[in-house]
């Protein structure tokens, strides 16, 4: 979503002060998208504000964030997301790719999708800006194959219950009131928030995923992410 240059990718995982949370779910293939969206939207609900409007003299006002209920079709579950079609589209796109990759060859149905919140730190030319993560959510997914309709029905309910637990976990983490980037000045706002959406303003985030093949090593998708990150896309 950012137009100007991308950050140099962080090489070796989260930075020192980045807190990391890991959630695990086992779902049926057709439940992957909804389960991922539920978790990602719940996190982003807590990590999005209204649009900032800077006024003279360094003050700013904040727009209003609307919310809406989303019912899942393949899971007995509903969740709340921020009312922003742009944000929803962006998440659906990422989750769709993840789902396709999970289905693809070389995968035994295990993978993980990560939502990373980061701040940009400007570097002097010729070095590109640094991206410093401050919170990383990783959802590990295990796709199961079910034999009959009865099992599927049970899975609908079970996964629904599991997701309820995940939402409670996420809310617990949010309630710790741990590090959040400082509210930025107008010139700095793009280093902290994604200001490209027209109705809400999430903290800068990026979504990436990895598919584990049967050898346990991650293949193509990590490379894809790296390529995309380094090109100005």
């Amino acid at each position, binding site marked *: 979503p950012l137009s100007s240059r991308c950050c140099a990718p962080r090489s070796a995982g989260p930075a020192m002060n980045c807190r990391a949370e890991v959630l695990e779910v086992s779902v049926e293939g057709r439940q992957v998208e909804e389960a991922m969206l539920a978790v990602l939207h719940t996190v982003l609900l807590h990590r999005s504000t209204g649009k900032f409007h800077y006024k003279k003299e360094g003050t700013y006002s904040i727009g209003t964030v609307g*919310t*809406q209920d989303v019912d899942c079709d393949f899971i007995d579950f509903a969740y709340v997301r921020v009312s922003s079609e742009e944000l929803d589209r962006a998440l659906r796109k990422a989750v769709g790719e993840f789902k396709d990759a999970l289905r693809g060859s070389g995968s035994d149905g295990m993978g993980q999708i990560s939502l990373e919140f980061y701040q940009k730190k400007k570097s*002097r030319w010729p070095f590109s800006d640094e991206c410093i993560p401050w919170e990383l959510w990783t959802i590990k997914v295990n796709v199961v194959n079910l034999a009959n309709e009865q099992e599927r029905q049970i899975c609908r309910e079970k996964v629904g219950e599991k997701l309820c637990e995940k939402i409670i976990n996420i809310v617990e983490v949010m309630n710790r009131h741990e590090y959040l980037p400082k509210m930025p000045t107008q010139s*700095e706002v793009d280093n902290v928030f994604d200001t490209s959406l027209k109705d809400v303003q999430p903290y800068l985030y990026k979504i990436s995923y990895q598919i584990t093949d049967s050898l346990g090593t991650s293949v193509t998708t990590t490379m894809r992410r790296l390529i995309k990150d380094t090109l100005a896309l």
Partner: protein
Amino acid sequence: AMDTDLSSQDRKDLDKFIKFFALKTVQVIVQARLGEKICTRSSSSPTGSDWFNLAIKDIPEVTHEAKKALAGQLPAVGRSMCVEISLKTSEGDSMELEIWCLEMNEKCDKEIKVSYTVYNRLSLLLKSLLAITRVTPAYRLSRKQGHEYVILYRIYFGEVQLSGLGEGFQTVRVGTVGTPVGTITLSCAYRINLAFMSTRQFERTPPIMGIIIDHFVDRPYPSSSPMHPCNYRAGEDNGAVYPSVEDSQEVCTTSFSTSPPSQCVFTVTKAHFQTPPPVVTDTLKVPVVGLAFSHQLSSSRLSYQPAALGVGSADMGYPVLFAGGLNAAHPHQLIGPGKEGGVPPVPTQPAHGTQADQERMCTPLDGVHYSAATPSSSEDTETVSNSSEGKSGSPHDLLETIFIRKVGAFVNKPVNQVTMANLDIPFAMFAPKNVELEDNDPMVNPPESPETESPLQGSLHSEGSSGSSTGNTHDDFVMIDFKPAFSKDDILPMDLGTFYREFQNPPQLSSLSIDIGAQSMAEDLDSLPEKLAVHEKNVKEFDAFVETLQ
């Protein structure tokens, strides 16, 4: 008393926030049990009526009931606001499903900024409430209501009564927000045993159809408030009129401000202060120097229109932010830096050698005293790490200009024999030295009989003595100096800025040296055929990916 620590304006703000938080909490809970999907729109321009920057509709009846229950009070210790959700079947059996409790305990957070941090955390808590109300069992029940049962709500204020939830009820905590007058806690206790109990425990009341039409059901308990159905439909109003919340003149327009944290100023208009505050300046004229040395500095302030000044429903359409144009009121700006929005308060900072920081926080407003070249060390919570930015240079020049300051911790020798090796700088041992100093280098020629001050010292010396002939043993270990790298030095004050400037050119990483580089390259080359094979296997996928990049 607690109140004297909190300015009266802060106290008023806090009370207002808590009151509206309670009202919005009730709205969220009841609306989540209406049986319908809720949808509100985001709006990039603030309208002045969206408390906590969230679009939560106000159902007038619900607000009315909540205000009635609160009767002008606020949640306090022992006085909790509770929303009870229960289910009533078409046969008249009813069962309590959940009790949502908004409580206040005595644990105060005196340091927290009301107008900024508390407000934002209350907003976050409402978001959590939105999420949690969808994951308790009653949500799914409420979505299916209408035919065999309805969901009812009841608001009461006082002591929490959980006995109606049956045995083994579970509790989920939505969240807490600390304030200077206590900690607000929001939680839900919910029944897990949804099997209907025997009917003798429940009331027999008129059939359910009557409830929907009349909107009210009177419970025979004299002390309890009436229960209300959660499937209120705005269009089916039976004639009762409730004051809409907009008429109450309680408008919150929030405006935040950012400026370097050194400008922790109170800006008080003449109308609002009686005694001159300790420091008052023209906020807006403070120099912007602060931004130059740390791009993350900011603080935020909340300004709002006090309700008494006549902002009524008529003005709601305007994004009322400052009183710039209005002559009715001036914004009352408060200090806002909070734990996540501004510079953390001094007490949480470890001692740094930068005295500027201490002064800045303790005496807000002396104008702006900084050490000019000091990168901010107060942003402890920042994850920013000042990496060397790739400058390659040798430390030769640097270290030779450093004064010889202190004897290293483990050297047992007279001060006049200090060498560069004894600088209390980490990794000083890697600095190239003048040859003539090697004789005095304790790591090469350890003193005869060191008095072991620590086990470490002994081992360092023994290592040194075994390799003393080569003269290169000082490369094998690092002189460990327990003095923290950035602390002040009594003999030669070197503040953080100087240190930072001097050490901007650290020595080259050994992994970048040719030998080691060649090694890992060889390994990489060996594994290349394997990797190529894997990638060839997936060539179709790559091609597809490249397509997407076009």
